[in-house]
């Protein structure tokens, strides 16, 4: 995401982005670029600054530093920005008293790029009935309704903050299938935060880890494949592996699993079969102090 993206067509561009709450730095002087046509996973432990960063991007919080979203300043041009951005927040926020058809009417009145036709098409695939109130829908249905509304907006940036929290596995899978099938294309960009990294790791094109308000890792999934390697090594060879300065070491059944970054693959292959680390393993290694 770094080198190629220093151009003006970035969807999001941050320079020295900082957010303070009193004396606490929630986001600490971060730089990043997100080009169009990517699905970026923003991943970090609780309290790392993910939601704060998203709020700044959506113009919901003030910040220091430079931030451009679709070329606009989210703090000052929020109304204009919202024509091209939509989001689902982790605190599912549809009013409980409203009926489904009222919500569709409302969104149509508020949002210039909302398509009622599309929305009804999505809803037809669900069991959601239009005369029902939000409070009478199941949690999964509320998420489906929210996604139907959001995907019916012709936006260039979709921000999803823990979109599948509390949903069962069928709903989660259907959610991502809809996203890939009906929404995403090379003009659009999705920024997504989640704790369920395993289930989205193949969907992502790029990965961003955030820890203590700083970016701990920022690279494409292709780079993960080419730059990081895991090797399982027998006990006798562990010291040999350690000499190559792995980023992280863990033990499974008396064998050592080392995670290397930018280490010659031929050298590593002599110690054992190379594997690409899962996002979850890479995350743990990075959070436990390995310089990513």
């Amino acid at each position, binding site marked *: 995401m770094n080198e190629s993206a220093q151009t003006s067509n970035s969807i999001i561009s941050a320079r020295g982005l900082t957010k303070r709450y009193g004396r606490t730095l929630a986001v600490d002087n971060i730089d990043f670029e997100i080009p169009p*046509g990517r*699905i970026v996973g923003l991943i970090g432990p609780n309290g790392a600054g993910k939601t704060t960063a998203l709020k700044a991007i959506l113009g919901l919080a003030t910040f220091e530093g430079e931030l451009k979203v679709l070329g606009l300043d989210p703090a000052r041009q929020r109304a204009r920005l919202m024509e091209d951005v939509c989001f689902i927040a982790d605190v599912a926020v549809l009013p409980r008293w409203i009926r489904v058809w009222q919500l569709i009417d409302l969104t149509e009145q508020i949002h210039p790029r909302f398509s009622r036709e599309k929305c009804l098409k999505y809803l037809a695939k669900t069991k959601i009935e239009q005369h029902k109130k939000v409070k009478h829908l199941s949690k999964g249905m509320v998420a489906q309704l929210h996604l139907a509304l959001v995907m019916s907006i012709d936006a260039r940036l979709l921000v999803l903050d823990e979109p599948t929290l509390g949903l069962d596995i069928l709903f989660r*899978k259907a959610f*991502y*299938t*809809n996203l*890939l*099938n009906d929404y*995403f*294309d*090379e003009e659009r960009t999705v920024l997504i935060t989640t704790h369920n990294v395993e*289930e989205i790791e*193949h*969907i*992502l*094109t790029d990965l961003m880890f955030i820890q203590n308000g700083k970016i701990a890792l920022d690279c494409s*999934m292709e780079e993960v*494949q080419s730059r990081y390697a*895991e090797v399982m090594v027998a006990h006798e060879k562990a010291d040999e592996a350690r000499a190559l300065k792995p980023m992280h070491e863990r033990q499974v059944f008396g064998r050592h699993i080392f995670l290397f970054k930018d280490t010659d693959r031929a050298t590593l292959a002599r110690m054992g*079969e*190379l*594997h*690409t*680390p*899962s996002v979850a393993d890479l995350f743990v290694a990075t959070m436990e102090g390995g310089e990513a």
Partner: protein
Amino acid sequence: MATQWNDSQPIYWQLKERTVAMILDGTLKEGDALPSVRTVAAELQLNPITVSKSYQALVDEGLVEKRRGLGMFVCEGARKQLIASERNKFLKEEWPATLNRIEQLGLNAESLLAELANQDSSDAKSK
């Protein structure tokens, strides 16, 4: 379809290999259309870039062609080309290993053929 991927090869490569296997076993015939990138991405929960890359690798090997506005199609002669390259791979890589094993176990052509004839006749009996 089972969507298990192994972590020792890139996913685009594994997807390509699956498509190759489908051409070899005739599930995908010459002239057949491949499903769209979007469909495959949604079905297998992969990012579309991975799927495109996989399709591009098939194009590069001359197995699949892009028809403007229509999508991707299995080339005429793709199966023949694959069989030739798979035969070559077998003879160069798998056969020497198998041969090695045969020698290691003290087997030879006669004993192997005798075993084959033996199995054939017991198959015939069981029918």
